[in-house]
């Protein structure tokens, strides 16, 4: 399986995402923001970082990158897309996911090992987890406070589209403790914390993040099987 990782100017965790994809057993394919060809990848990761310096608003400028055109198009046809941190912000700015990410309630950047509960295991990126599974992966962001209007929140909650929630501490003030959400179809997922930093016990708080990458492989394989 070939999984594309997009590098925008200012992307930082692109190499980490590629490493995680490789550890999970897939082939990472680096994609460039300025191109508009997905090179036949089976899924796409929008990695963390500060694309365009996070100037203006996080993700606001990247949303208009040429590579986003085929991503938005093919996401509509079911291409699995995972946006991590800055990638989540880009997905919201592109309206592939509802809501927005705003300044942390503490107004500080925060880096910590974060406990989460996986709330939904029907998405392409969470199906390898057990429902309700508790995991610990790093969180690091300055603008990770998820907001949306009440109607949207009700809908996310009512349709099981909150895929992960913060446990113990809500680090950024997100509404409903939301750490990640999915689109209706379950192929597009946005997640604030960083699973790609929890794929080797030596360099992260454990290997709990691998499940996101294992999930997409699992769901791609089950799709391939008729």
């Amino acid at each position: 399986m070939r999984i594309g990782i997009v590098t925008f100017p200012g992307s930082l965790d692109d190499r980490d995402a590629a490493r995680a994809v490789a550890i999970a057993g897939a082939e990472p394919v680096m994609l460039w923001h300025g191109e508009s060809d997905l090179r036949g990848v089976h899924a796409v990761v929008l990695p963390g970082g500060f694309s365009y310096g996070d100037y203006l608003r996080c993700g606001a400028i990247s949303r208009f990158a040429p590579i986003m055109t085929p991503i938005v198009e093919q996401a509509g046809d079911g291409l699995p897309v995972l946006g991590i941190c800055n990638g989540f912000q880009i997905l919201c700015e592109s309206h592939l996911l509802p809501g927005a990410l705003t300044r942390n309630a503490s107004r500080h950047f925060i880096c910590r090992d974060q406990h989460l509960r996986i709330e939904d295991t029907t998405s392409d990126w969470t199906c390898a987890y057990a429902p309700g599974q508790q995991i610990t992966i790093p969180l690091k962001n300055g603008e990770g406070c998820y907001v949306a209007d009440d109607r949207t929140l009700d809908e996310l909650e009512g349709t099981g589209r909150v895929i992960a929630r913060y446990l113990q501490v809500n680090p950024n003030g997100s509404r409903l403790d939301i750490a990640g959400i999915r689109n209706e179809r379950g192929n597009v997922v946005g997640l604030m914390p960083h699973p790609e930093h929890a794929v080797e016990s030596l360099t992260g708080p454990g290997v709990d993040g691998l499940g996101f990458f294992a999930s997409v492989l699992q769901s791609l394989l089950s799709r391939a099987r008729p």
Partner: protein
Amino acid sequence: MSLDTVARAEREPDAVQPFADLGLKADEYERIRGILGRRPTSSELAMYSVMWSEHCSYKSSKVHLRQFGEKSPDSQALMVGIGENAGVVDIGDGWAVTFKIESHNHPSYVEPYQGAATGVGGIVRDIMSMGARPIAVMDALRFGPLDAPDTRRVLPGVVAGIGGYGNCLGLPNIGGEVAFDPSYLGNPLVNALCIGAMRHEDIHLASATGVGNLVVLYGARTGGDGIGGVSVLASQAFTEGGPAKRPSVQVGDPFMEKLLIEATLDVLRAGLVEGIQDLGGAGISCATSELASNGEGGMHVWLDRVLLRDPSLVPEEILMSESQERMCAIVRPANLSAFLDHCAKWDVEAVVIGEVNDSGRLTVDWHGERIVDVPPRSVAHDGPVYRRPFDRPAWQDGLQADDPTALARPSSPEELRATLLDLVGSANLASKSWVTDQYDRYVQGNTVLAQPEDAGMVRVDERTGRGVAVSTDCNGRFAKLDPYAGAQLALAESYRNVCVTGAKPLAVTNCLNFGSPQDPAVMWQFAEAVRGLADGCLALGIPVTGGNVSFYNQTGDTAILPTPVVGVLGVIEDVRRRVRSDWGTGPARIYLLGATHDEFGGSQWAHHVHGHLGGLPPRLDLAVEQRLGKILVEAAAAGMLLAAHDLSDGGLAQGLVEMAISSGTGARCQIPPGLDPFVFLFSESASRAIVVPEPNFEASFLDLCQAAGLPTTRVGEVSPHGATLEFEGLFAVGLAELARVHHAALPAVLDDPA
């Protein structure tokens, strides 16, 4: 028409020049006239004045710093020594690393966020200029008292600036220091360190070789940043109207720096670069004169080709601008278009501003007129050298005689318990996570150790697991009591912090923060610290590969504590063998390595409890330090250690508390018979560490120590799943209470009131 050309300087030899306003002494000005055989043009004057400044020329410190070279130990590892942008050491398997620490103290006081941010930016470019990929940063910080109102202005801004810049570059922050002392209230210290890695063959130097090669300036446009002084010349040049206002503070653009890193790595990887230099202090003046004098010896520059952010800049200002996020590369003509393509890919502007020649001169033209014609060496390397008078201050004896043994000591169990909690929650010993939680320590996925470990450690080679560990340390109170010993104690602590993680020390960098060099007492502190550090490095067998001097750190006539911050870098063959300070959940025995004496001069206890600074700092025997380090490294490599932690500020008690908190598991400890509990718990004797051997290796580890003649003391045992830290027969404290006290101190003051 006011352009001051070489021709005009010859024509009007007696024009009066404002050299004093530019910080040049009369004799220095005369020397420039002597070198040139005429008066300098205003552009030449600008170049000399900035390159001969203390900051760029090290004119007051040079005579002392020489010792780092003269006393340098034989080192197999040293590939590039002192004198280059940053030293380079061989860490094996064809890998080399470079690291350096630099100060940005004054700008961080004026504008904490931007001052600290641009400090990180500058050191990262230094590392890139060696051809290395930056792989981690660290920051050593000193502030006034935690509860002082100005600390609440400066500290959050500095931390946000370091985080804002470093996080945006994608460089993990793997360690540093935060210390508080009243002497830093009007003069905080912001020292930033960067580590880079490269293959041996990728090492690049700042030299302009190859006649006909091109000088390419790339990165941000040049603006009027940091040219306060030279505006004197500008205002002379612009008699009517005057120049536009010049910024007094530089603003960093980390996004531009990130692009600059990527573009630089691309052109290096593609083999398109002959020589490379970052633009830091003194900007184009420094880059061109250093490149030229290290290379073929000649260079011509078309200054009007420099891309400007502010079109009102005059040539003198362009030469001196310290605009951030710029680099200079020497490129063969045949490689130019490929070089420019890589820059364009990353949206980085680049322009050819000059050419290497063998004229032996650095010449600069402005729209066809010659405004600079100098021997580059005279600008870059042959600046003035001062032997400033230094003198042991009269008060030093009194200070050393003011022995802390006279201070009231806690003795009852209740008093000892209260003292422990008081220290654990004191600003200097409290958890620094309020700071470190604002730094990304995970990015790049190679961080093996970061806070709260003794040293930061990153994996360099993902295949083999080869990595490096770095620590920075300095106790300024020790340095005040005895600058020679204080510098060695800083070195020893940093060395030990690297050893406890299992890495073998290889090299030293330093940032010497002192008061005014014109004060003989300060100059003495400086001279002693340098001598101590050089002797110490020789004794430990690790060379100084680079560093930075920051003078004039004082408020009025009062200098800061002498603060020679020492960074030690070590190598570890396999990061999977790294040792942490987390002792797991037990059961396992806890040992103290090294001897404890009644030593409280400059200690955290004397400082925090009594507000006292006097006596002598702890004694240091570098041979013992080396033996301790060797055992720690060997034992780690053999997989003998479950945990290890160095002892410094706060002594054994603080060390045990930190280990217990980070592992979430308590311990039962005993005071060895015949020892004074207060001394045992709180003394800050040097060359000590706590280790917890793997139970099956305990006996062989103790044999190893005995064979080396290293004293070991059994301190206690980890209590399986215990939740208290207990000192038998004295007192016990719950981990929850310890953690609360330890973690609350900084947030209590720094968090926004609700």
